[in-house]
């Protein structure tokens, strides 16, 4: 594990101090740059740095991480049973998924990329809708009330959009920021570079939140960039960046809290959470083709939920936790969400034609009318649709 960066909250992101991660990277290029850490693998922690969270809040963090585990396990199972579309698991990234979202504030917006189920739930997204989304039901994207944008599946595309959205916040003098979740592949795109550059020029309240989980599908981080870190990508653009141990939920929370204040003042910032994806890229991917079991095993030992449990023990909070009950509750919540998703009735084919425009153009009306007439005349088309092999 990399050494802990010595800093105080106000100094984490201050590019002028020698503690800036960016500067560490520049001055010690031959070493793996350090990442900010509060709790190590054993659960040993630096009491000076533990963020000011109540015991209840610490337990809440634990609950969210367990929920993420439960969602991932059960979604993958559902996909295997043919009850779910392709799913992107966040297993192994529970701390980085939860720690950042938990550090955001009520008016903030979250722009997801797909592997952050509980982050969306923390923003207020009903779990049912998460299931509907991965089942390919567009209605799941009605998330304005929960201040989330639909997941950006085309890599990088949400970056300039999120920058524009936070530019709107700045014009509006709103007390909010946009948090753009992304992976370590996104900085390879023109969208990312252009968006980050515009953010830096416009001083938009944008948080670039990278979950560096080691791989973009099969390509390891080393195949994405010659740079040692994502955090340092900000240097050339005049942005501050911090690299944090993404499996240490308290470090993530602390870094994002600090970054959020900085961002809200019009300083777009990169937080790079270094973590590891323990599952496949998606349920369509076979990671055994590109990574070794030993590597995965090594990261299993570092996985964040167990580490946080060890911290809670050392902190003296664990005796207030009933882990079995928390897990049962998470499973029960998933059961309820699945029941609601199963009960959800999508509209007919007219759903496809709705909302393309505010006012549907005549030609589109005509295509819909012709299609509906066709379906009336040839109901066997439904049989074909139902029996066609899926997936």
């Amino acid at each position, binding site marked *: 594990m990399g050494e802990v960066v010595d800093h105080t909250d106000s100094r984490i992101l201050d590019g002028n101090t020698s503690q800036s991660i960016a500067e560490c990277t520049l001055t010690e290029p031959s070493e793996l740059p350090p990442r900010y850490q509060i709790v190590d693998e054993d659960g040993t922690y630096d009491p000076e740095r533990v963020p000011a969270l109540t015991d209840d809040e610490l337990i809440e963090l634990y609950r969210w991480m367990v929920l993420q585990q439960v969602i991932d396990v059960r979604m993958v199972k559902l996909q295997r049973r043919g009850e779910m579309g392709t799913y992107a698991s966040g297993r192994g990234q529970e701390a980085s998924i939860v720690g950042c979202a938990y550090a955001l504030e009520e008016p903030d917006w979250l722009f997801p990329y797909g592997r952050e189920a509980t982050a969306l739930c923390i923003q207020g997204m009903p779990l049912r809708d998460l299931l509907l989304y991965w089942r390919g039901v567009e209605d799941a994207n009605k998330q304005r009330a929960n201040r989330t944008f639909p997941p950006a599946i085309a890599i990088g595309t949400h970056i*300039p*959009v999120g*920058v524009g959205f936070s530019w709107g916040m700045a014009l509006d003098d709103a007390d909010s920021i946009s948090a753009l979740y992304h992976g370590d592949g996104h900085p390879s795109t023109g*969208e990312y570079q252009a968006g980050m550059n*515009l953010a830096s020029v416009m001083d938009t309240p944008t948080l670039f939140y990278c979950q560096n989980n080691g791989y973009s599908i099969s390509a390891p981080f080393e195949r994405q960039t010659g740079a040692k870190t994502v955090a340092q990508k900000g240097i050339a653009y005049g942005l501050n960046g911090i690299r944090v141990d993404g499996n240490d939920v308290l470090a993530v929370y602390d870094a994002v809290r600090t970054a959020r204040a900085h961002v809200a003042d019009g300083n777009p910032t990169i937080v790079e959470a270094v973590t590891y994806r323990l599952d496949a890229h998606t349920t369509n991917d076979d990671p055994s083709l590109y990574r070794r079991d030993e590597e995965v095993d090594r990261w299993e030992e570092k996985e964040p939920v167990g580490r946080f449990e060890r911290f809670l023990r050392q902190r003296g909070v664990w005796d207030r936790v009933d882990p079995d009950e928390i897990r049962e509750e998470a499973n029960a919540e998933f059961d309820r969400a699945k029941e609601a998703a199963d009960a959800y009735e999508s509209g007919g084919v007219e759903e496809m034609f709705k909302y393309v425009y505010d006012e549907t153009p005549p*030609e589109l009306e005509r295509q819909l009318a012709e299609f509906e007439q066709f379906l009336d005349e040839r109901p066997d088309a439904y049989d074909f649709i139902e029996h066609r092999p899926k997936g």
Partner: protein
Amino acid sequence: MNATIVESVNDALHTAMAGDENVVVYGEDVAETGGVFRATQGLKDEFGPKRVLDTPITEIAIAGSAVGLAMYGYRPVAEIQFSGFLPPTFNQLVSMASRIRWRTRGEMSAPMVIRAPYGGGVRALEHHSESLEAAYAHIPGLQVVVPSTPADTKGLLLSAIENPDPVLFLEPKRLYRSFREPVPEEEYTIPLGEAAVRTEGEDITVISWGSMMPETMAAAENLEAERDISIEVIDLRTISPLDRETIVESVKKTGKVAVVHEGPKTGGFAAELVATINEDALMYLEAPIERVTGFDVPIPMLGMEDYYLPNPPRIEEGLKAVLDGGAGT
């Protein structure tokens, strides 16, 4: 006022910004210099640097941030300096702008306008002359508007800015300053999706738009004089959504059609028009439809561009081919 097309763009932007404080204008060089064609001149002085600003040279971020601003509640009118620089915006137009309303089931939308001077014939550098409107018309959810007169430009641009969905507004730069006409001082709109019949006629319908309109009108006039016929000329004004009704009604009347555009032939918008007429008016056709277009080559640099662009003689020969039922050019 008596205005050129580029002056109408400027007037429309002043009108829109004065009428709606959420309208924000930005792009490359639009604030300090008023844009390379001066389309945004005076806006920054009048509306201030928060609403009129120069961005870094980044078409991706100009288009992408417009989506975000529009979603947030602003009305961005972004300028892409030349249509040849639109391709970097394509991903944002396809993956984001055109889909926001659909993806969010109407909860959010991207009411934004991207303006770009398009087309050849001004002896510009490479990559300054592209006319790829057909590619953008293929994107569901995006509307594509191409004015050809100063009065239309003002009304269509104001419509585009008020429009609840994203609009690509392609301005025929060859015509920017080529003529003036009376343009009403007051605020007015021309609905998107409505073609204009420039001249009414009985013998053949010619469909065109944007920068090809003067050549098309000249060719029609020449041929009317030469053959003592009457030609109906339709200016589409909006490529997407398409005004099928005006086209079909005209074809039913004349029975003969030619389409003129300056973009490449294959997969060009003329092909869409031919298919549309086949669907709705095939039995009224008395001759095969003729396409007079650019060639399937990149729009040449200034040395050869005048050979590439359809001109009145080529258009006249295309019309004759339809009228005579023979082979075209």
